[in-house]
């Protein structure tokens, strides 16, 4: 089986996100990046399939983004992926999920992948669109938010347990397919120290605009139907007020404050 895994390089969950002065973007200075949490489940699942099949199955990690994202490919390689592809071109900058999925589709099409795994969403922008857009662009089946994969005997189809509101839905999916992964699917392994050292020696393939065979007008900001017009932080929690005095007075004041200041009554 040929498996592709989509991985994304995102700010560490501990990062304190700050907006740039013009509120048009997020301050990247000093931000520590890591592999998107949900993508770790995708990589782990791919490796588990390869280990189970023992038939020369290959796992290729794919990412799109600027030079810094290579470190996430290295992480995937260190966890055990066989190959890695870095899709990068200045023209890709500013693309939305749909546009980026189209680019990735161009990259993976000639590879003849049987299965593509990805995270259920990027924990940075929370769009949760790339996997479905990619399946759409490739014309394959898709199953999102997977918490369990059960394979048929011939490994040509599988049952995907999807986490939905209040329960699970089980869908039967025929390969080729794109599956997005949810927490609970597995326990992602660590990149071991020997794994990291081996990863250093593996080559990372680069694909640029010419490589994907698209026109610069079809990619990046110019190729996107949506455009981010700004960001705004959540409003800060207003200061806490503690009322003091006799209970009767406090209750009176509380009712007044709720009615007049907070306007919730």
């Amino acid at each position: 089986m040929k498996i592709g895994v989509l991985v994304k390089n995102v700010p560490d969950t501990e990062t304190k996100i700050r907006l740039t002065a013009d509120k048009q973007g997020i301050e990247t200075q000093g931000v520590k990046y890591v592999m998107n949490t949900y993508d770790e489940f995708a990589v782990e699942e791919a490796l588990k399939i390869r280990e189970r099949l023992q038939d020369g199955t290959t796992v290729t990690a794919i990412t799109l983004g600027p030079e810094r994202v290579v470190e996430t490919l290295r992480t995937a390689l260190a966890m055990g992926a066989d190959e890695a592809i870095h899709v990068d071109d200045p023209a890709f900058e500013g693309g939305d999920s749909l546009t980026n999925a189209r680019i990735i589709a161009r990259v993976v099409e000639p590879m003849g992948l049987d299965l593509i795994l990805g995270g259920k969403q990027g924990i940075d922008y929370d769009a949760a669109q790339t996997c479905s857009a990619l399946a759409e662009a490739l014309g394959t089946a898709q199953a999102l938010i997977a918490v369990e994969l059960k394979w048929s005997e011939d490994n040509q189809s599988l049952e995907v347990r999807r986490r939905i509101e209040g329960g699970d839905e089980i869908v039967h999916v025929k390969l080729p397919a794109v599956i997005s992964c949810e927490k609970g699917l597995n326990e992602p392994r660590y990149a071991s120290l020997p794994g990291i050292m081996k990863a250093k020696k593996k080559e990372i393939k680069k694909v640029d605009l010419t490589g994907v065979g698209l026109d610069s007008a079809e990619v990046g900001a110019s190729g996107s139907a949506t455009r981010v017009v700004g960001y705004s932080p959540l409003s800060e929690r207003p200061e806490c007020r503690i009322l003091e005095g006799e209970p009767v007075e406090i209750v009176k004041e509380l009712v007044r404050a709720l009615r007049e200041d907070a306007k919730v009554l």
Partner: protein
Amino acid sequence: MAIDVTKRGGSFLIAETDPNSVFTPEDFTEEQKMFAKTAEDFLHNEVLANLAKTEAQEAGVMVGILKKAGELGLLMIDVPEKYGGLELDKATSMLVSEIVSKGGAFASTFGAHTGIGTLPIVFFGTDEQKQKYLPKLATGEIVGCYALTEAGSGSDALAAKARADLSKDGKHYVLNGEKTFITNGGFADLFIVFAKINGEEFSCFIVEKDFEGVSAGAEEKKMGIKGSSTVQLILDNVKVPVENLLGEKGKGHRIAFNILNVGRFKLGVGCIGGAKLAFDDAVKYANERHQFGVPISSFGMMKNKIANMASGIYVVESMSYRTAGLLDEILSPIDKNAPDASKQTMKGIEEYVTECSIMKVKGSEMLDYVVDEVVQMYGGYGYIAEYPAERHYRDSRIARIYEGTNEINRMLIPGMLIRKAMKGDLPLLEAAKKLQGELLEMPTLDESEPEGLLVEENKLILNVKKIALLTTGVAVQKYMTKLEEQQGVLGDIADIIMEAYGMESARLRTLKLAAAKGEEEAKTAVDMTRLYIYDTVGKVDLWAREVLAACAEGDELRTMLVALRRLTRYTPIDTLHMRLDVADYFIAKEKYEV
């Protein structure tokens, strides 16, 4: 070959260093950062997540965590490739130690296995011994430990009573005795044991758990690092095959001391990890905890603590990774396949034993300072076991005691340097003599005010180095070979030497950082460096006066004090407001990150 002074341990006292030549925590490669990430994930998911269980000494949990570390390759960093290890650079080794040491008791467990439990075989084992034990130690399949201390012999380790007698057929040594405070002893498979052949020749043996007559006592009830195993090892007529003699007969002291010397740098960096975790906890807490209607982190006295803790960590971190760089520089040319590669490696590390001792002492004392202030910042909650400050406070305390108490290390620091000087390996005494001449001359008044980043501070650093030379020179002249008996003098000199290394390392790192990122971005680093230097010069002055007064009197002393005064004179800067700036930086970040 002519001696290149700058490539010698201790040379920081007599040579100037180019900031570009030092290794700093800002220099880690992508790969090293990946190693760190694995260590970090392991720490959070395995070590800290199981803290309640390990602290309660739930059977099997701590050893299970150690085995997991083995699966990830965290135990094979210092083991030669030839024997199943990774043999990575020392900077990586230190970085990983620093991170996993945030786990309190796990730090000891990890250190006892990878350091004192494994390194004796790495450095002193025969090829057969290495083949047999190292691959399994490297993966954690077997757990190692080190049994030197006895009830009657701690610091005076060579006074051990455990004995080994050759069997009649000459095939075994029969070991008898009791070893105390053996870390990992409760679950170890392999013990590096020191005993005297015929009660005389101090020697080292590899003892397996399953050898008949080996047993472990009950777990000690400890103040801290409760999750680690600390037991007595009882050897009752244990038959140890002669092949398991480690190193040469009667040369066990070489193993005992060298292993502690070469292992010490890890304990030093481990302290940095512990301090960072406690610091991060405290700053977060200070932001959350409100009194008088505002977060306690907004109070000047709290900020004062935050700034002092941060600059303390910064200095130890700077000196530690500078030492890592020195070690890697001296070790990297060694052909790893050479038959005597491990011997050369040990010799390389030995070159920097003084620096390693400094890291251990400064690291452990910085850590204790930090955890003490962390408890204070938590107020009453700092005293309550449900909050993390209490554990930090207890766990840290052991670092000043084991792997050579800080007192023993304080004696080693000037002692080793003086020995080096006597052997002609380091022109320390020449420099001291030259300096004495200089100081007695009338000073050429240097009224120019050179400007530039940390230039004024560099003058102070150079002066502290001069004071180190002056006090050492005067003490050697006065007491000659009897200097060893003057522990007060040695202790003060050790403190001066350590501060010289710390201050200079911080300055070098900061200059490198400022050159890379710009002075604006490096502001906090600059402030921390300055704070530390200005806070310390006064202490150096006091120590130096004590030493001089203990070595001279009358006119001689007066002349020396005049010279000293010239070296410690400085115009104060506004450190109090500088601390507020430093604190604000970390209060915004809520963690130690430069």
